[in-house]
Structure formats: structure tokens, C-alpha cells
């Protein structure tokens, strides 16, 4: 596939329409998502930003097909999402690598239908892409948090999905590893041209990564604003425009930018 130019208006990949989500138990009813409308274009990197517990993970789980919404729906490439699909892989915030498989076993997990040579070739490619050469036969419990996250990203990429859903993937990493992983993710995104939906509660992270930041309100979550991040990569984190965009979102969320 030829990567689309950024200037060319790209077609809509993910279409979220009138989405509502309410969790009901016997005694109570919790409204989590209200009236979410969002279009994500093919190859776009969209961050969904909101306070902890606002329902942004729920939104991602619905888009990925793990949860049916109370009302409204999601279409991808024009067809309604009814369940999870290998063309769209979810990367879990709790580090969902399989602890009983080696790095190779994890990365090759979704490649069961392939011939052995093809699978080995693909696994080797993605091991190299995420910089895990030499660790092919290591088990996850022998790896650091950042390396496990790389394994999970590689496992997702190996099945060549069109869309990646990332649910606070770097939340559990230390701040230095987090920065490294962000630039790695951008590098991979440039190389592989996936559509990415990335959930985070970290304003800086969203402005560093995304083409557009979808700012959510507290529960029940609605979309407050969608901010275009008109900065080319690699982004200068001390440029005026970067700081302007970042502070704009800080204000939007109602946080004083002082401690």
C-alpha cells in the first residue's frame, strides 16, 4: 500500500455515531459515555484525553468490539463493529503480554495461519522493529516493563492490522522509558502507517503524539473539544506553538498551570 500524503484529505476509517454507554447494576445506573460523535481518518493518530475514570477506556473497548454500547454505534470502513477483529488490535494498559510464551511466542501469537518460514520471518522483522534482538527466547517475567510493552506492540503489529487501539499503554512505565517509547511509537507509526486511537490522561503525551486530541469531560464523558495539533514531527517540546497548544488544553480542562 502506498502511504497517503498528509496533505491529501484521507477517507474516514472509524466512524463513531451517537454513542451512549450506561452501566446498570441492580441498585444503580452509571452513565459513562454520552452522545459521542467522532470520525477518525485513515492513517490518523488520535489521542483521547480525559481525567482518570471518565470513561475513555470504556469508549476504546466499545470501539474495539469488546463491549456493546447502550445506544449508537461504531462503523469501521463502513461496516458496523460487532466484535473484536484481528484487523484492529487492542494494546492493553495492564500489559497484556502472555506470560507463558516467550517474546517470539508472543509476537507470533496471531500468525497461526501462516507457513512456518513466513511466521519466523515476520517475527524476526518485528523483534528488530521494536529493538528486542537477543531477547527472542526470554519470558515476559524476565523483561522490564518497557520491554514487555514493546513485545505487546510488536505482537499487535505482526498481524498487520489497519488500526491500533492503545489504552494508556505507557502509564505504568517510568518517565524516561515513557519518552523513549513515545518516540518509538511515532517511528513505527511513520514506518507502518496505521490508524491509531490512543487513550491517555497525560496532556503532554497527547500533544506530543497526536494529529488531533479529543478532550473529554469528567463522567459522564462527552467530547468537550477536538484540538488539531498542527505541528510537524519531530516535535520541538519547547517551541511556542507546542506550549500554546498544551496550555490551551490545560485551560480547557480547567487546570491552573502552576503548582
Amino acid at each position, binding site marked *: 500500500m502506498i502511504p497517503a500524503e498528509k496533505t491529501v484529505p484521507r477517507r474516514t476509517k472509524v466512524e463513531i455515531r451517537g454513542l451512549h454507554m450506561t452501566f446498570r447494576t441492580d441498585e444503580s445506573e452509571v452513565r459513562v459515555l454520552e452522545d459521542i460523535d467522532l470520525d477518525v481518518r485513515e492513517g490518523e493518530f488520535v489521542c483521547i484525553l480525559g481525567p482518570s475514570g471518565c470513561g475513555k477506556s470504556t469508549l476504546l473497548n466499545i470501539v474495539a468490539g469488546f463491549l456493546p454500547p447502550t445506544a449508537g454505534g461504531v462503523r469501521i470502513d463502513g461496516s458496523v463493529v460487532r466484535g473484536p*477483529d484481528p484487523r484492529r488490535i*487492542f494494546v492493553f494498559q495492564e500489559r497484556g503480554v502472555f506470560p507463558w510464551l516467550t517474546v517470539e511466542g508472543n509476537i507470533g501469537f496471531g500468525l497461526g495461519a501462516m507457513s512456518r518460514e513466513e511466521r519466523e520471518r515476520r517475527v524476526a522483522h518485528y523483534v528488530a522493529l521494536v529493538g528486542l534482538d537477543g531477547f527472542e527466547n526470554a519470558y515476559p517475567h524476565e523483561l522490564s516493563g518497557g520491554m514487555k510493552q514493546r513485545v505487546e506492540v510488536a505482537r499487535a503489529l505482526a498481524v498487520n492490522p489497519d488500526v491500533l487501539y492503545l489504552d494508556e499503554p505507557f502509564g505504568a512505565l517510568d518517565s524516561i522509558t515513557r519518552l523513549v517509547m513515545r518516540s518509538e511509537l511515532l517511528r513505527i507509526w511513520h514506518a507502518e502507517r496505521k490508524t491509531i486511537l490512543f487513550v491517555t490522561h497525560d496532556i503532554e503525551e497527547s500533544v506530543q503524539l497526536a494529529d488531533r486530541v479529543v478532550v473529554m469531560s469528567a463522567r459522564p464523558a462527552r467530547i468537550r473539544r477536538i484540538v488539531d495539533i498542527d505541528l510537524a514531527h519531530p516535535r520541538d517540546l519547547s517551541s511556542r506553538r507546542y506550549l500554546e497548544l498544551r496550555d490551551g488544553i490545560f485551560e480547557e480542562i480547567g487546570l491552573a498551570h502552576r503548582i
Partner: protein
Amino acid sequence: MSSRRGETVLLPLGAGALLILAWHLAVRWTGTSVFPSPLSVGRGIVDLARKGTLGRYSWDSLRRVAWGYGLALTLGIPIGALLGWRAGAARAVNPVIQFLRPISPLAWIPVAIVLFGVKDAAAIFLIFLASLFPIVVATANGVRGVPSMYSNAGRNFGLSGYRLLSRVVLPAALPEILTGLRIALGVAWIVVVAAEMIAVDSGLGYLVIDSRNAGKRYDLVVAAMLTIGIIGLLLNSLVQRVSRLRAVRWGFREES
């Protein structure tokens, strides 16, 4: 490393030696004519080994355990997996399991004899029953406790039904299943001795009861007991070795 080894090997050996010494002194000081000294038990073991009784009876006991435990394993893991996987099945069967579980396997001895006679099958049936419950319960708990992100990840890669179970759910539950298997093997080894005292006429349990009945040979009784203990220890360390395999060790981290 070497001092660690010293602690794990020498200390227990020292404790064992002290225990045997205490036993020896206790027999001497009380002047008992019934309870054997360590030395006569040692002679008893050598005696039994020479006659071939010890080997043959150990083999008989192990064979029964292998059958009963093997059957419990082949039936218990699928049953447990089903109960953990399907909430409806668990709701239906759980009360029955909870009702049967507190009944000691030994209470089944008369039933086993009625069903199978004084034969191998009776002992095997008892071992099967005794080891079935820990395996079923551990497998069901393990499968039920698999974090949803693992099964969601499996579904995301296109797996469902049996393939999801075999490639994601069972491997994720394996550490807990292994714990159940280890408990079950310990129980099986306890039950085989009891079963052999009543339901058959060979094996280490039979050796205990026969040595007592045929001439009050308490040296042989204790010799049989020691053999039972040693084999039990070996069986346990065998299962523990399985838990150290790299593919399951992640689930036992608090133990290592």
C-alpha cells in the same frame, strides 16, 4: 551459593539425624519391647528389600496411584475447565461438588469394595475420587480467574471457543492447575495407603497392616512407614520440578 546449599541440604539432614537419635534414645531409655529402634527398622528395610517385598509392594502402590491419579487428571481437568468456563455449568454442579467434597475418601471404602470387590479397582477408585476434587476445584478456579485482558487479547486475534480455551485460558490457568495437581498427588499417596489396608492384599499400606497382624512385626511396620514417607517426598519434589519450568514459573513467583 554454597552456603545456601548448605542450608537447604545440611540443615534438614542434621534435623533428621537428631530426630533419629532422639528416637534411638527414647527406645533405649523406656526399654520398650514393642516399639522398634532405628537400627532394627533399618534391618527390617534391608530384609524386606532383599526378599523383594519392598520393591514389589512399592510398585503396586505406585501403579494404583498412577491409575487413579491419571484418571482423575484426564477427567478432572476437562470438568474443571468446563466449570470455570461456563458459569451456568458451575452453578449447576457446584452444590454437588461442595456436598461431596467434605466426605472423606475413606468413607467410600465400603462402597468401593461393594462396587469392585477386594481388588485393585477398588483402591484405584478411591484414589481417583480423592484426587478428583482438588483437581476439579483448582482447574475451575484457575480458569475462572484468568484476567479478562488475556481472553480479550485472544479474541482480538480471532480465537474463540476451544481454540481460545487451549491457547489462552488453559495456559493462563496452568500455574493454579499445577498447584491443584500437586495437592491431589499428595492426597492420592495418603489415600493409597489407607485403601491398601482394607481393600487389597498388596502394596505398602497392606505391608503396614500385614506386618502388624502377622506377628506384631513393628520393625516392618515402621520400615513400611518410612518407605511411604520417602516415596511421598519424591513424588512431591517431582511435581515441584514441573512448577519450575520456565513457561509456568511466572505464576509461582512468590514461592521462588
